């Protein structure tokens, strides 16, 4: 039967590291190799992190003007800005009976597909898992757990409406009461 190697002895040897052998250990080829590898991989991680913040961001500005409020008559969902900016401009009195214009982000709140606006059915319908939203953005069918998100909308100084996609307003958090999330519909 093979004897068990005396483990206790090794521990004693490890405990007896003096200054001289520590320096020697630092120049051990294996330690050097693993040290270099560790440093290199750290540099790679840092470089990757830097890569996530490009010097130049080729994206359209998050705030843009969409013309006067009169372009958006009551009861309409405008898909004019969908392709370029990913928002629907909605003018409706179907949310708490108030006449409002607001901009809905075209991102399904279930898993992020782009729903289609179905004019005939008066609903937004997601082609990925079948979530459906009323014209005002409130979810009612399929798995989407919460309403579509509004983005900022305000009346600019020149009388045009201005969308600000850098801010989001979530209905379930009570943020749709925020006056930056809509414009009075009687302006149209």
């Amino acid at each position, binding site marked *: 039967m093979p004897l068990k190697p005396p483990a206790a002895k090794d521990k004693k040897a490890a405990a007896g590291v003096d200054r001289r052998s520590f320096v020697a250990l630092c120049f051990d080829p294996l330690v050097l190799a693993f040290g270099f590898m560790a440093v290199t991989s750290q540099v790679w991680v840092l470089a990757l992190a830097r890569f996530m913040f490009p010097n130049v961001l080729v994206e359209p500005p998050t705030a843009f003007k969409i013309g006067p409020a009169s372009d958006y008559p009551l009861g309409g969902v405008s898909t004019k800005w969908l392709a370029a900016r990913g928002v629907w401009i909605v003018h409706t009195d179907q949310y708490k009976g108030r006449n409002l214009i607001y901009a809905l982000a075209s991102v399904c709140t279930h898993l992020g*597909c782009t729903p289609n606006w*179905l004019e005939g*059915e008066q609903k937004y319908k997601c082609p990925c898992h079948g979530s459906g939203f009323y014209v005002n953005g409130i979810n009612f069918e399929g*798995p989407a757990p919460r309403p579509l998100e509004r983005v900022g909308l305000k009346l600019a100084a020149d009388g045009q409406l201005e969308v600000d996609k850098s801010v989001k307003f979530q209905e379930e958090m009570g943020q749709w009461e925020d006056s930056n999330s809509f414009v009075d519909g009687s302006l149209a």
Partner: protein
Amino acid sequence: MNSLPLITSWLSLGSLEPHPNVTPSVIFGLGWLYLILFCMNVAWTWRSFHKGHHIDLPAFARGGHIPTAAIWATYSTVLMLVSLIHFSCASSPDSFWFIMPDFAKTAVDAVVADARYYFAVTTVGFVLMLLFRNWLAQPNIGWALLNLSLLFLTISLTDWDFRQIVGKPDNVPIVAMLFIVGFFTWVFFYRANENDRRSAQGRPPVEAENNEKVLTWPDLVYTEMICMIAVTALLILWGIALQAPLEEPASAVKTPNPSKAPWYFLGLQEMLVYYDPWLAGVVFPSVILGGMMAIPYIDFNKLGNGYYTFNDRKFAITTFMFGFMPLWIGMIVLGTFLRGPNWNVFGIYEFWDVHKLEALNNVNLSEYFWYGLGQPLPMAPAGSEFWTQAPYILLREAPGFLAIGFYLVALPGLMAGTIFKKFFVRMGFVRYMVFSNLVLMMAALPLKMVFRWAVNLKYFIAIPEWFFNV
């Protein structure tokens, strides 16, 4: 004078129907399919003839017996005649009569276009398959089933909408997969039945009796090489025959309708219809993978090692097959063939209408509970802080938390005392809890599907404020 019909007949455009059910080329192609079926059945007739089996007629038919070869020969002849009909009538598609009748289309669509019936049919079919495994695993019955499914596929191809779905290059391999799954399931039962019969007679399984060792070279390596060549040839033919289904360049604001995951993820996509993304996309897939890794540690049944059997491992095989066939393959079929625009369910002969309306208003359990009591949902005063809101939200969702708590905490204990008593004794507490929770998680998908279809239940626990929905 309207000369349009005259012109179209000169140009032999046939009917002006934009979605013709049959065209000359379709009929001609089907003729070839029936001819292939005929050849297959001639081979099978030859096999039956050499086996020499016969069927005993019942007493009222004077108790005679018919050789099975005679039945298959008759059937083959009919197939050849059908094939000839197709070849000779291909030029006049408008008056072609050997097509899927409309009443049959309506009947099939009524079943498959309703997810409740579809799931019920697949589940009942699964149970019947297990119950009648001895009868189904006979070679002649297996061959008859193959023929029935091929005939169904062939005659269904006379429908325009069916051809669009089945003939899409993406979907052709799924059709093949159905036959492959059917074949290997049949092979399993055929071999398992043989061993179960032997075990009932007290004999060792086939694998133990014929365990002559073979050599890696040449036996194994040659087999592998032949498989390699065959698969390569198949892939080349496939690459030539079916064009890659490339689409227009992707656009962030234009999602294809319907948007389908790759076929092997359609089970997950179907799961996402019923559960929140963090559950259906993260937790359940992890549980499936982790659960499969845990099976060897949970399993205490030492039987069934190294040989085909069903009777020795009834629970394990039934559970796995239920997860694989109705829940995984069934969901792939549902996702591939039945899910259409706007992720609505369509029949296999139904036109994919983007404007098909289905009433799908979904209701959360908390809404059922509080509105059922005639009360409004508990809601914190507007603009209140997180710590003021939290008790209101938890109270609102209390029915869901209780239901889930009962399901995952109390139910394992109840099952340990009743249906899983033997398992609990054999496994011990920890193993049993892991096992019962895995089984319950697996059952959670069909349960939620049934709740969704039956009472439009959306979420048991719905807290969109915290991204927590179950």
